[in-house]
């Protein structure tokens, strides 16, 4: 057993660190450090910087634009980006549909779609969930009927993250209702500008707009946009879910979150002394840090297994559950640190207006962040569903 990085890994770490220090734009950093509402342009700009360096898709095979890094290098890369608080890579193109296209798509589809994903010129969204189909995704009803060389799509999707920004959507649709649920699903790509698509915003309780409803009214989709075979969509979707879950532990980001909590707890006063000296607060912070360290080593062990050629198994559900619990706990402690100033709803300031925030800048968005992060145990397969997976696949119950 050896937990240290090799000399090459350490050199790689220095290289990444130096690159991020030199190339991460200060204005984007300021925006993200302040906890303001994310802007599409910032994501695109940062992803393009990584693209130009050849680092935007570390997990992809080299032939399609990947880096050829080892899993350890990918991990180091994630750590460095997290530590610098760069905008997260928006997963829909690069982590989700991209791998589906290069794994199951035709040569023609690869040529057509992969370049736009890598360069972030084409933005994707994920059309899986429907009003009646959340955890039970296979029950989805949105229908695609083949007519000659096109499909006619009718139905609706919901919770579609960033659909308001997206150029294209990858969608699970029902192409056959006469077979077992899972067998009648197909994987379709289509242009969000197609006639018949309506996108309606859903405002979340923190006041933000990141999810949407999408309605499809006789949307015509060329049959060439079908991925793989008709009726095989569920297989591709499951493959994609495996990709969605990796990286969901967000260890590097949580480390940064804890560092920020410490900063806040050093600045906020309780009975005239820094909050960090409050025994209760200190204990909770320490417990959280230990929890995160455990998760980090669990993730490293998963990674080591992967380096030996074993794919991420159902154990990755542990990473989802613990990762999201820790992310949520960090926001809870931020609210506790904010005290009364956590009450102020600095909504316009959060959306980028010049309005000054009420109370200390470091805690101004603590409450909305806490409300928003409740989503993490719901999406990407809810934590209850992850536990069902572990119970069944790992424990054999």
């Amino acid at each position, binding site marked *: 057993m050896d937990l240290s990085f090799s000399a090459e890994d350490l050199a790689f770490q220095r290289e990444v660190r130096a690159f991020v220090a030199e190339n991460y734009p200060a204005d984007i950093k300021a925006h993200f450090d302040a906890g303001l509402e994310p802007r599409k342009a910032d994501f695109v700009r940062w992803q393009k910087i990584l693209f130009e360096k050849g680092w935007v898709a570390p997990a992809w095979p080299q032939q399609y634009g990947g880096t050829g890094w080892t899993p350890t290098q990918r991990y180091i890369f994630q750590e460095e980006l997290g530590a610098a608080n760069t905008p997260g890579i928006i997963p829909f193109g690069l982590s989700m549909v991209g791998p589906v296209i290069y794994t199951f798509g035709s040569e023609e589809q690869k040529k057509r779609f992969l370049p736009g994903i890598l360069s972030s010129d084409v933005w994707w969204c994920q059309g899986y969930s429907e009003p009646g189909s959340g955890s039970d995704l296979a029950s989805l009803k949105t229908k695609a009927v083949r007519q000659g060389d096109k499909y006619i799509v009718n139905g609706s999707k919901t919770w579609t993250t960033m659909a308001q920004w997206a150029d294209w959507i990858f969608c699970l649709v029902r192409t056959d209702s006469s077979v077992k649920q899972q067998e009648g699903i197909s994987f379709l790509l289509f242009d969000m500008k197609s006639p018949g698509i309506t996108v309606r915003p859903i*405002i979340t309780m923190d006041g933000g707009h990141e999810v949407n409803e999408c309605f499809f009214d006789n949307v015509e989709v060329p049959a060439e946009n079908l991925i793989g075979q008709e009726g095989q969509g569920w297989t591709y979707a499951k493959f994609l879910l495996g990709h969605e879950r990796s990286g969901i532990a967000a260890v590097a980001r949580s480390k940064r979150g804890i560092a920020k909590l410490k900063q806040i707890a050093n600045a906020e006063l309780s009975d005239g002394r820094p909050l960090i000296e409050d025994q209760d607060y200190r204990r909770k912070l320490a417990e959280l840090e230990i929890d995160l360290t455990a998760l980090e080593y669990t993730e490293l062990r998963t990674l080591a297994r992967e380096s030996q050629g074993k794919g991420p198994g159902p154990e990755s559900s542990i990473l989802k559950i613990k990762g999201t619990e820790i992310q949520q706990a960090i926001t809870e402690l931020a609210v506790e640190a904010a005290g009364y100033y956590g009450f102020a709803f600095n909504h316009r300031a959060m959306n980028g207006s010049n309005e000054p925030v*009420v109370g200390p800048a470091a805690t101004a968005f603590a409450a909305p962040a806490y409300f928003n992060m*409740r989503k993490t145990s719901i999406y990407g397969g809810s934590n209850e569903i992850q536990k069902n997976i572990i119970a069944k696949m790992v424990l054999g119950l």
Partner: protein
Amino acid sequence: MDFNYSDEQKLLIDSVERFIQDDYGFDTRRAILKSDEGFRRDLWQKFGELGWLAVPFAEEDGGLGGTPVETMIIMESFGRGLVVEPYLSTVVLAGGLLRAGGTPAQRETVLPDLMAGGLIVAVGYAEPTSRFNLADVSTTATATGGGYVLKGRKSVVLHGPMADKVIVSARTSGGQRDEAGITLFLVDAGAAGVTRQDYPTVDGLRASELVLDGVAVGADAVVGEVGSGFLLLEKAVDEATAAICAEAVGAMEVLHKATLEYARTRVQFGQPIGRFQVIQHRLVDMYIAYEQAKSLAIMANLKLDAPREERRRAVSAAKVQIGKSARFVGQQAVQLHGGMGMTDELNVGHYFKRLTMIETLFGNTDYHLKRYAA
């Protein structure tokens, strides 16, 4: 032993509940939140007509002479309806201070108008660095001739934007965190030297940052005795804490019922999600958390007139239990509603947000655990 309500109390429950059902639906509340004022003056006056604003005041002051149980009843119903009107600030908190410490002149000039719904009073007890310590006061009150000059800053004054008057704590002597030397003053919100920065809060209320820059008040502005404001403030804040515990109980009840109903009707995998045992147990845990919270909220409200130590312990015990229960019930209500629970459109998130703020208001769980254990 009797946990039953009297017939009169039952009538009060009926009247408040009927109002919440008929006149304070979720859409009405939503419209109030969006309005400039952030509350409905006509409804507030209606509260006055119905006698709710007179409940805790003595009969000789024109009040109804109610006990904390009546306040508890009203606050629990207001919790069910997520009422944003300034009852807590004006009737419970400022009212508590004026009842116990107001001079005859203050009671005569302020209370009738307050009880009629014409006058709103807020209380500024916190400062930017005071956290939950009511004795941590740096605002100064300097005696000048016949009165005082106030200088300092009060933070997150709930219902400040709509207040006609504000009662603030200021230091007439002593060091920054001494309990002795704190004096309470009744100040006109529009007095020269008062500036306000108003803003909405995340749970739908309104609050202000209050800057007092050389505000001159007469000696008749003092509420209670000079230098002894702390104990008065502490008792009123304890009463207000017990009141928000009741409010939280009302909010938790709605959340638990709504989640139960959702679990019965939301179908996934061919059956209502409430058939999954993990969901059943979660709903049971939410129910237990709610019942435990309700028990201590009642206990605390019944002990508000007990000797100081006993009252403090009872209130802190309740606040700790409420804090833990509110967090659990709120988070689970969102979780079990799935994506729907995250939306602004559904009421669940709004109850969760109010419960989250109640967890912090008048001292969070850590603060009250310490006060209890001390």
